[in-house]
């Protein structure tokens, strides 16, 4: 199936608009700064071609408005050139986005215009993000990478009751430190509490400042208003 739209001068085609991760070719895997990780909002093992893409996925995990995303989702043809965008993001506060992450956010204007018009027909936005804008949030991204790894490892374990109790406790207290929940001397005993807290944070029930400092025992968690 070929879907066409006429941009100003360029045609845009794709076989399918269903976002499915396209595997990275072996040669490209070895030629690029390649990363792989399982995330929670992405359906399968995510493959990234740069550190900026990895960080962007981590930031999406930490954004409670992002419902899901798919990396390397499409193969467009813009004119005679093949173009694979980086991420397809589904959000609950705006339209779906097809995101390209580029150094200095440089993207050919004609191609961008063609792609924007084409995706607009399907209620999608085309967004180009600068690498530096992502690197400026490095601390936050690294924190979310660590949190996602912990949550992914424990994906088969439930902590519903602990989450409820913990949320009540934090709401009553107004705030609490990570060190109040996690016992550094006996991590095994407080692991379920720790997991519950991270899940609350992930879902946006509690909030913490992960922007400026690494997650540590003196990180403050407070309920979301």
């Amino acid at each position, binding site marked *: 199936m070929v879907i066409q739209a006429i941009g100003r001068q360029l045609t845009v085609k794709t076989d399918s608009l269903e976002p499915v991760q396209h595997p990275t070719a072996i040669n490209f895997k070895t030629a690029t*700064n390649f990363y792989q990780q399982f995330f929670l909002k992405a359906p399968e*093992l995510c493959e990234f071609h740069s550190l900026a893409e990895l960080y962007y996925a981590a930031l999406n995990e930490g954004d409670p408005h992002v419902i899901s995303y798919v990396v390397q989702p499409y193969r467009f043809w813009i004119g005679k050139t093949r173009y694979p965008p980086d991420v397809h993001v589904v959000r609950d506060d705006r339209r779906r986005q097809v995101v390209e992450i580029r150094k200095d956010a440089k993207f050919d204007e004609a191609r961008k215009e063609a792609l924007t018009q084409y995706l607009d027909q399907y209620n999608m936005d085309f967004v180009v993000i600068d*690498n530096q804008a992502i690197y400026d949030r*490095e601390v936050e991204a690294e924190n979310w990478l660590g949190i996602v*790894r912990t949550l992914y*490892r*424990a994906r088969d374990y439930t902590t519903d009751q602990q989450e409820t109790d913990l949320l009540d406790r934090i709401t009553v207290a107004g705030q609490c430190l990570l060190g109040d929940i*996690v016992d550094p001397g006996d*991590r095994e005993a407080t692991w379920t509490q720790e997991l519950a807290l991270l899940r609350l944070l992930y879902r946006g029930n509690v909030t913490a400042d992960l922007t400026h400092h690494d997650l540590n025992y003196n990180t403050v968690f407070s309920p979301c208003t």
Partner: protein
Amino acid sequence: MHLTWRQRLEANPQWYQFKHWPRIPQETVAKTKRKGFLRNKAIVMAVLEGKALSEVAHEFQLHPSRISQLMAHCLAGDKDDDPPLTQALIPHKVVQHKQRKASLSSKHKKGPSCAFRALLYDVPGLRMALDTFITDKLDDKPTAQAQTPANFHGVFKNALAEAHWPQDHYPYTTASCAYESVRRYLYQRTAEIQQQREANRKRDSRQLVNRRKILRALRVVQFDEQIIDVGSKVSYLLNDDLIPLRLGRMNVLLCVDVDTECVLGYYLAPCRAPNQEHFLALIDICLSHWQPLVLTTLGLSYLPDANFPGGLPGHFPISFGLVQMDNAMMHRARSVTHVLCERMGATMGLGIPGIPEVRHLVETLFNYINTHCTHRFASTTGSYPTDPNKESRKNSKSVPWVTFQTVNEALSVVLTEYNLTPKKHLGHAAPLELFEYSVRNRYVPFVPKMIHQEWQPLLGTQFPKVHWYRNESRAPFVNFESQRYVGEGLVRAANHKEIRVEYQRKDLRQLQAFTMAGESLGEVHVESTGWQRYAFSAGLKKYIEQVNKSHRLNMRDPIGSAFRYEMQQAADSPKHALQMLNIYSQISQDFTQPVWMDFDDTNTHVPAMATSQAWHPTTPETFHHRGR
């Protein structure tokens, strides 16, 4: 347009005040020139204040023309060029490049001073031809010549000939045709062009947040492997003769935590090309509780408290955050991705190819191993034929005294010692100490036992289909690694449906089978009796099948035949001796299980050493091969 010093001052009135001149501290001027510098400075300050030249000259006991000359030296010059100012006050300092005013013709007899520089300007196309010679090499063009002074001089002479330079002009008037000037120009111009390119090179504009990173254990780990350049031996006993064998060079695989610089584990693979199974064995070692080796080598001993993080009291479970590796094939294996990403939830990073500096820490550790362990012995290859570090021909004909076990023990001692050595850049803390501190006081991701024990890197899972051809009166079987596996429990599995099998990668003789719903179907074992005798891995099986293609082994006893094939060539070939050791390490499960071997010579074209030999190696370094 040339400006005199008075014209320069009129054009730039700020230089009437000496405080606006560039400051050169007198301590930076050479002692022998300091006195002259200070005197010149005083002269210039006096003139700038408005004193008459004659007055200044009288004060400093100099001729007024000398004062004028000094001022011109500081301020005069071309209008578009910056004057040297304070630099010119330093006695004998060259502040302006000399320019040749006399002609280059031999008639003028002005000598060759500044002649080469003048030649570059006067001869059309000369400078471009010389620059092209250099840039072709820097651009790696196929037409580039070797950058030798002789070649460069040839280009120089060619360019002069093409410009029809008169034969009575410089450089033809010199004996060497300006060879020395050309030689110096080659190096100077090459450096200039390289520096220009380096300055103009687009750099990574990424600006990471400038923050003081809290050192956190297990945030980033690095893996790598390297061939260790040390000759070693293993011995085996044949008919009461102890036969030592020289081994080929083997690989050491290493894992290190970046923030604490602590070695998490190592694995000495007795093979030339490690595969995914060796890599998974290293991960297994890092995750397991480390036990010190029983040291058999005289003189080797562990330091007190020698350890790897996996063996620390408290047993903090080791996990990985970001795993940095290079893009070797074994790192990209599906089994490795499955263990690291799916089971351990880590991030795998393969890095940009050709830039090992990204994993500088593990590369530094290899250098440490070389310095403290392996390079204490003669090099097996040397860097060049007459390298004094290379093993002499006499010694290369005999077997080294270092055994494989000694190398393994030495690595264990050296790496544990590294973990206990305080490092200045870590605040004089030892890596192991820093690791312990980090896991106790920093928020390091914790993995509970119930999850950690599921991470068994050497446990594989596959989903083969059950085949049951009742019309052939055959028991149900599954195909796994090109072999048929049978078991009583398979009758409970539905035909042509998938089941789950779990297996130990180091021993594929038996698998544990389960239905997709999780119900156990018991054990299934390889149907072929030849493969039932000794433990084998997928890598070993593949190797044996490759050798069988060319050498037609006895596949009724594939492992024994392969072992004997290697053994028969081991005396003359370190490569085969190493492969023999590799096979033995796998069938004995890393030298932990004793192995008896019987060789059946029926239907083999390999000459028999004896009709039947029972073979029981008791220690890794000695193989007892007894003939009957």
